[in-house]
């Protein structure tokens, strides 16, 4: 049995002592939560690059951080930094010289972008070299320290580990659109096994780039409902037609409960359990019987030692793709059974879009805010219910409710499924 400082399985309880967030709706929990609970959308026309000729021209971009010179990893670093600073301040650790634990970072894979390739190409304009030989000669013959420090797969983690003086090797993880939840899971595991008393878990993503946008368009994954942008993302609606790419960052300070209490930290909530399950069906689709998603949700409940009836609210993955929302409903039904009919399930992606690698972390922050404020964020743009998805999606307007236990789902390409169970202090 559990004690004050140990959970029902005898493991150290994992407390959340700080969190922070950046999305297209703004910087910080206050602005974001005000917008989210007012049902406001952050989706807009993309102004970062021309979208002429593309089927999708909208996204939830973060354009207010004044990143200069702009690049995707520079924006990822800026968003992650803003979210982590907020989390550390709330945890009362902002003034510490070092963070007393490791960094677990969910971040997109690194890749040079077109401006960088073009720069390299143009540097060799006096050369008759063609193809990648030309790009390689530019790399070899000139100095590109800034590019090198931003476009490695470990770059973002490296900058953040320096900035916050986290301990040991910073860990970068990718489980596609479940990455943010995986980063939290890694932190939980490290605390439970006594490897550390604290972990800084961050998810950040700035993937609104030409090529990434085109790739998702080619996968037929994105909404093409460009006008008006704020109406495009409509999770669980019958007329949903795809997700909307978006940017943002979420950060959580996790601590072993006993040590957090000992230092007098305010306990915001607990990560009670984590579940994951890989799918072996298809590279971009779930197994039709939902077994992998069902497995992830069941594993989270088992890990947290909670019954379906204890779930007060589900913060859905809810991407607004025809496939995801149907599979998520069926899987929740399989696990929660009749209790699902009494359980509100909403998707904040209706307002902030799909923040990809960051989604699991951002949505964990919103789940915690639902617990702390007693307010369920709505699913906006819910005008045409889907008879195949009979859910209480908290349609269009936020709702007051007492929330003690939340499930937060995250599913990704490559068969990645992670569910977190968060609880009130």
């Amino acid at each position, binding site marked *: 049995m559990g004690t004050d400082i140990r959970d029902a399985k005898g493991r150290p309880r994992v407390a959340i002592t700080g969190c922070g967030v950046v999305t297209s709706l703004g910087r910080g929990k206050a602005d974001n939560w005000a917008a989210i609970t007012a049902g406001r959308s952050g989706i807009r026309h993309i102004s970062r690059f021309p979208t002429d000729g593309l089927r999708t021209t909208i996204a939830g971009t973060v354009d207010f951080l004044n990143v200069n010179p702009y690049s995707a990893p520079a924006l990822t670093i800026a968003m992650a930094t803003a979210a982590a600073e907020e989390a550390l301040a709330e945890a009362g650790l902002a003034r510490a010289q070092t963070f007393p634990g490791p960094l677990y970072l969910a971040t997109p894979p690194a890749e040079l972008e077109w401006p960088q390739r073009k720069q390299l190409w143009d540097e060799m304009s006096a050369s008759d070299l063609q193809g990648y030989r030309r790009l*390689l000669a530019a790399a070899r013959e000139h100095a590109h320290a800034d590019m090198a420090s931003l476009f490695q797969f470990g770059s973002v983690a490296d900058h953040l580990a320096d900035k916050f003086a986290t301990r040991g090797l910073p860990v970068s993880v990718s489980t596609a659109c479940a990455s943010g939840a995986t980063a939290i899971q890694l932190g939980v595991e490290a605390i439970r096994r006594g490897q550390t008393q604290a972990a800084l878990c961050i998810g950040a993503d700035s993937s609104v780039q030409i090529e990434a946008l085109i790739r998702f368009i080619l996968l037929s994954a994105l909404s093409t409902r460009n006008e008006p942008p704020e109406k495009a993302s409509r999770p669980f609606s019958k007329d949903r037609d795809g997700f909307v790419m978006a940017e943002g960052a979420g950060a959580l300070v996790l601590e072993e409960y006993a040590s957090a209490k000992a230092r007098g930290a305010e306990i915001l909530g607990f990560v009670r359990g984590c579940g994951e399950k890989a799918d072996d069906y298809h590279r971009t689709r779930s197994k039709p019987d939902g077994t992998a998603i069902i497995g992830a949700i069941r594993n989270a409940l088992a890990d947290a030692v909670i019954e379906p009836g204890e779930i007060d609210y589900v913060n859905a993955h809810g991407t607004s793709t025809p496939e995801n929302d149907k599979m998520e409903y069926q899987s929740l039904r399989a696990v929660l059974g009749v209790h699902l009919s009494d359980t509100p399930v909403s998707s904040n992606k209706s307002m902030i879009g799909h923040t990809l690698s960051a989604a699991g972390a951002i949505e964990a922050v919103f789940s915690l805010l639902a617990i702390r404020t007693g307010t369920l964020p709505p699913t906006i743009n819910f005008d045409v219910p889907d008879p195949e998805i009979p859910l209480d999606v908290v349609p269009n307007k936020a709702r007051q409710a007492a929330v003690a236990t939340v499930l937060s789902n995250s599913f990704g390409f490559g068969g990645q499924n992670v569910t977190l169970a968060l609880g009130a202090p």
Partner: protein
Amino acid sequence: MLDQADEVWITGVGLVSSLGDGSEAHTDILTGRRDGMPAVDETTFAPYPVHRLVPLDLSKQIPKNSDQRQMEGWQKLGVYAAGLALDDAGIKGKADLLDRTDLAVAAGSGERDTAVDCKVLETASAGGDTPLRANEILPSALRPTLFLAQLSNLLAGNISIVHHVTGGSRTFMGEETAGLAAIESAFRRVAAGQCEICLVGGALNAERADLLLGYELGHNLWHHPFQHIEERTHRGGGFVPGSVGAFLVLEQRGHAQGRAARPYARLTAVESDRGRREPNPSANPLAQVFARVGSPTGQEATSVFSGASGVAPATAGELSFLQGLTRSGGINCAWTYGDLIGHSVEAHFPAGIALAALALRGEGLSAALAGKKCNADDVAPIDRIIVTTVGHYRGEGLAVLERIS
């Protein structure tokens, strides 16, 4: 110390490289039954030498053509090596077991279509705005397999699909530190009882111009005719990438014994850190992590399989430290395994552990490979191997493997 039931055993090894396909090919080279000459291609990507992968019959591990068509070279190599490790551990095809086998993968990302890249750049040079040209060209030119290969976690995804490994699945990124993080996470989870059995490893397809470009931006590549790692450090340094797929099955001892699995070795420690290199770039980058496991004193027959990349000055600092340990008798030998298989970045740490596992279950390391820097008479048998990996620009770590007698 771990108590016995919680020991972490290595019960499966899957290794493919420029040296050969599978454990036997690599063991033959370790023991000197076959000459270990680096297989280097100096022309295709000149001036960059690369260690070229041996030809593989992919259908042995990826039987469906439809699966092969969905993957790029990086993924095929990794899925193939993962299959070898599962076969070797005796769990291939055992649905119940695979359904609770966790997966930890160290990955960068996959091949780009370099012809399409250049077409965009050439068209943009001829006039117009690069983004607009990209908008025109990419939607019809990008192949779905190529853009799915850009997702780092799609090596893990393909392993799940092809081999049905469907427990948890995490993909770690960050060049060499991806391999350190994947192995350390798997090791600590098994040791703590958070996982009973885990498939862990990585893959690098070195024969890619787009991959070379990423490393050369930081001037990390060796761009002269092939030389061995230590020699390269005297001429400015640089690494020679090598195509490698390296996977291991890590298993709780009790679990392994319960299914009568035959172990290669026990993994007794994995340590990692990210020391600052700036104040003294040629200092020993492994000082911290060695201090945590205790510097070898020569009481056990210990060798080091060093994953030094050849990038100076970190490699010079590491080799100087290891030569000191050899001279003082703390270790018998320090072998830089990248001399033979090349530097395999994300896969390099798993590859070193795979080689060490083979050496511990086999006949050790031949005096020819151990070379003059070793106390050659003491080379065999080896009881303990410390595998090191130092990131080409940051991060360092080690693993300690012990013979199971």
